[in-house]
């Protein structure tokens, strides 16, 4: 069946304290559209299906190739990236809502700051930057590097937090993404030098212990990162760390 128009239903909210409302839009169909190009079409003609003039919907996007995580939103009830959500594969009308576990900024934009704060607290980097040549880094075997690559695909998009029952407006849980990053940096030969620091942070407030084992994260991850394996691996690493601290060795 040939489509001539695409219907979109967008949850609008002017600000964190404003009331939410739904607005419907109809845009001309073009082959191979994604949700971003549909939203771009809406803002080029910001009138609802009722013909009422409205403000252009506000949304975030950046890379348009599912590597930055900025355009995460709930599309037809599923949290995912708008850039990789192809209109031809979606049921109509396309229903767009902002993620619910983060403070709302406006319309489809939320503030994922808690994720970046968590990465900072977890020391999720390897401090090798210098203004002089440090020489070649240590060699990494192919298996470790393949695993590291799969963990490094994390784009802090927020899908794993969105589906996690342990993430609430009042909880301080860092979520699967940051836990998995601790694993990534602790498995790197140079990153290992700060493993202790990261484990201490991971055992701090809102850390690994707050995981509730619902395992939704791994199924929501658009980059197919083995998040539940990371959580269990960090469980093992903290177990070993605690035993070492208790008994030495």
């Amino acid at each position, binding site marked *: 069946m040939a489509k001539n128009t695409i219907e979109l239903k967008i949850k609008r909210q002017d600000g964190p304290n404003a009331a939410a409302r739904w607005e419907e839009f109809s845009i001309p169909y073009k082959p191979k559209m994604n949700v971003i190009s549909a939203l771009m079409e809406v*803002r080029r003609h*910001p009138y609802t299906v009722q013909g009422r003039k409205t403000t252009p919907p*506000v949304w975030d996007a950046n890379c348009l190739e599912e590597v930055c995580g900025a355009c995460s939103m709930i599309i037809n009830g599923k949290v995912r990236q708008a850039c990789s959500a192809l209109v031809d594969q979606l049921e109509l009308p396309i229903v767009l809502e902002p993620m619910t576990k983060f403070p709302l900024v406006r319309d489809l934009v939320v503030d994922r700051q808690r994720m970046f704060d968590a990465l900072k607290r977890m020391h999720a980097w390897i401090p090798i930057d210098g203004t002089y040549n440090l020489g070649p880094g240590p060699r990494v075997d192919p298996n470790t590097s393949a695993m590291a690559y799969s963990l490094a695909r994390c784009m802090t998009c927020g899908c794993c937090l969105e589906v996690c029952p342990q993430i609430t407006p009042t909880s301080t849980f860092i979520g699967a993404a940051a836990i998995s990053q601790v694993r990534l940096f602790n498995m790197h030969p140079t990153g290992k030098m700060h493993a202790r620091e990261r484990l201490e942070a991971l055992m701090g407030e809102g850390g690994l212990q707050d995981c509730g084992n619902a395992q939704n994260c791994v199924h929501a991850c658009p980059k197919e990162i083995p998040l539940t394996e990371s959580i269990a691996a960090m469980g093992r690493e903290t177990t070993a760390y605690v035993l070492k601290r208790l008994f030495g060795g």
Partner: protein
Amino acid sequence: MRVFPSVHYTMGGLWIDYEADASGNIVAGSPRNHQTNIPGLFAAGEVDYEYHGANRLGANSLLSCFYGGMLAGPAMVNYAKGLERSCDAVPASVFEAERKRQEEAFRRICALQGTENPFVLHKELGEVMTDNVAVVRYNDKLQAADNAILAFMDRWKRIDIHDAATWANQAVSFTRQLWNMLELARVITLGALRRDESRGSHYKPDFPERNDGEWLKTTLATWTPSGPEFRYAPVDISLLRPEARKY
């Protein structure tokens, strides 16, 4: 899957300085490195014009990212250390005046109540640039593109902003940036129009050869109220002589 050569990178960017020693090598740590012509404003990475010339080879954006960062970091530190007074010593009126200027610019855009849609203008600008100012360039088409950009600039003033919110207003910031895009589009178009040769990603079928005699130089554009003003600076080839690039 459809394949199309999309614009991925802009060769060119903010002008930045560097300090070379007598042998032509860069002086690491000099506060001149990566400093723009606005004192204290540094640029590093894709935003600056350095390193790539007329064509950025694949993966070489990492080079400008890492190398530029390694130069710019210490340069900024040394610049800050060498300052006689910090921002605390600048009278509050300076900041206040700038704040007023920016608020005024925001208000002016919020007040735009014409008939044009900024996002439509942006799309049309993209189409004009892709059609006329991509890799293959003809002077008549470049001239037509510049005329089109001037027409867009006129239409920009008749934008209907649709959104006057003072919170997370993307329409206003987009419209502001759109004006800068128009200014920059003219720089790219007119710069290309003047350069009658082919070099890197700039290919004119009417001038298919690289012309080092006339055009081995960097195009410098300066903003003026009446449009970009062009100057040319020699390319530093003291360490490496350019050769013909053949694939």
